[in-house]
């Protein structure tokens, strides 16, 4: 039983990180606009996050050091600070989008205007961060997030021509009515959404919160190898749903309610209800991950006590940072900005900042002074990680120019 419960950190991280507001909308929008021609990006993203999350979890288990602690140590105070500022800002945008996403999910079952629900959601997020133990949080939201499997059921119920679907996904082409730049832009958005840095901030800090040691390396592997591919599967299912139901009707996705539409049409009322619970759990989980990450990054950069395993009075600055992040996110959210737009910007900007976070993880995972000789990366693992480092650098360089050329994909 403990073994089963043990993988909920990975499931929550993956569901909150992979199928958060950004991915829900991005995957559905891509499925409706590009058919399955960008599905390969999700697979590339899953492998990347698996490799780097495994390293960050292993480092956390062996020397008890979470990611941002290492970022400052390896990048130095200046680069580290630049990374902190960038990560914090992106995190804040993401948190804003997630809070709005939770409110929208609630508005879809209550028909109350979502803007009125935003303050309520913010307080709810804060209460969970303040009072609920880390383990409970993982289990509740990880478990509820599994409701998103209804998207897989939907694809199966539609009963598409599987071999056709597979050949569409495995031999991607750029659709004739799209240009190469917007194709690349959406590819980067999907990749950025899969590898958002807050996933490793949260995962590695969570490993410390859960008290992992060398003995838990198997648990780390199970978490990573089950959690993230599951997140990838859900992403692909959402994409396929949009491709199968929305694309034939020439629907472009730009609201959260449209994401759930294929489930409604295919599975019916119960399916819709389950999908909405799943969306609620995923966005709420992501709101928890990003608000905690706001505290984790600042506290770990400056060396403050941090974490939910401490009483709030023992980590008061950590809690103050989280509270401030929530308040700022609330203010942005109720100003009425389009939450879907905020999400898009946050995932694309995070793609631009990726190497700053992942590079130090790779170096430390190779450092015998931290890891001991037997736990440093193996050769094949390093090879894959190096390939990804190159991808991350290329992505970060081309992201901003692409954003300008395509006018953010419009």
């Amino acid at each position: 039983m403990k073994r089963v419960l043990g993988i909920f950190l990975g499931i929550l991280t993956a569901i909150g990180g992979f199928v958060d507001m950004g991915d829900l909308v991005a995957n559905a929008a891509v499925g409706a606009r590009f058919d399955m021609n960008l599905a390969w990006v999700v697979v590339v993203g899953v492998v990347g996050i698996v490799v780097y999350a495994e390293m960050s979890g292993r480092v956390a288990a062996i020397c008890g050091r979470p990611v941002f602690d290492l970022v400052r140590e390896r990048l130095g105070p200046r680069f580290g600070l630049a990374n902190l500022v960038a990560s914090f800002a992106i995190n804040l945008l993401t948190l804003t989008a997630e809070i709005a996403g939770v409110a929208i999910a609630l508005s879809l079952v209550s028909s109350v205007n979502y803007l009125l629900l935003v303050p309520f959601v913010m307080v709810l997020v804060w209460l969970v961060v303040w009072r609920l133990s880390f383990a409970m949080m993982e289990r509740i939201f990880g478990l509820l997030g599994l409701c998103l499997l209804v998207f897989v059921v939907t694809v199966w119920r539609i009963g598409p021509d599987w071999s056709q679907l597979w050949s569409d996904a495995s031999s991607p082409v750029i659709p004739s009515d799209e240009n190469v730049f917007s194709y690349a832009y959406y590819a980067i958005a999907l990749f950025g959404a899969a590898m958002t840095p807050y996933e490793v901030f949260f995962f590695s800090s969570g490993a410390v919160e859960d008290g992992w040691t060398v003995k838990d390396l198997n648990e780390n592997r199970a978490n990573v190898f089950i959690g993230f591919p599951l997140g990838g599967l859900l992403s692909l299912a959402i994409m396929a749903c949009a491709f199968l139901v929305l694309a034939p009707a020439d629907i472009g996705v730009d609201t959260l309610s449209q994401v759930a539409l294929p489930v409604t049409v295919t599975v019916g009322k119960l399916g819709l209800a389950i999908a909405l619970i799943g969306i609620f759990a995923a966005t709420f989980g992501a709101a928890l991950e990003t608000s905690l990450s706001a505290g984790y990054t600042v506290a770990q950069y400056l060396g403050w006590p941090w974490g939910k395993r401490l009483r709030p009075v023992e980590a008061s600055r950590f809690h103050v940072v989280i509270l401030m992040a929530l308040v700022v996110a609330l203010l942005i959210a109720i100003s009425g900005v389009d939450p879907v737009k905020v999400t898009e910007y946050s995932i694309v900007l995070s793609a631009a900042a990726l190497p700053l976070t992942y590079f130090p993880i790779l170096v430390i995972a190779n450092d015998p002074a931290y890891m001991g000789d037997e736990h440093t990366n193996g050769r094949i693992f390093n090879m894959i990680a190096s390939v990804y480092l190159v991808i991350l650098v290329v992505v970060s360089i081309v992201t901003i120019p692409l954003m300008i050329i395509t006018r953010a994909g419009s």
Partner: protein
Amino acid sequence: MTDGRVLHAGLHVLDRQMRDRHGRLCGKVDDLELERNEETGAMYVTAVLSGPGHLLYRTGRRRIGTWLAKLTSHIERSSLEDPGRIPYDRIKSVGVTVDLAIEANELATFAAERWTRDHIVGHVPGSRHDADE
């Protein structure tokens, strides 16, 4: 050559996490103080400097950093002469973390922690209990 343990300042000491004598996290090694022995001409590390002022100084904001470090050195009550300066003889070990032989409370980095605890977090219900299972 010498037979003592070799450390590189940038690689092994600066920016390391510090822990107090109970293992509590209490700031980072923001800078080191050096002093030259006039007789031998050798230079030694005499203290670890920690706190926002020293961090600012190190990142190039020298004037405001010095000012801030001075400011925090006045408001503190601590067994240390200057709570932003941890004398070398109060360091227990230097490894993946830098472990100190003093209380986190005595350090300048903890002033803000104490303030937020006493003025904000401590007033919120539930702040003194463990999280609910």
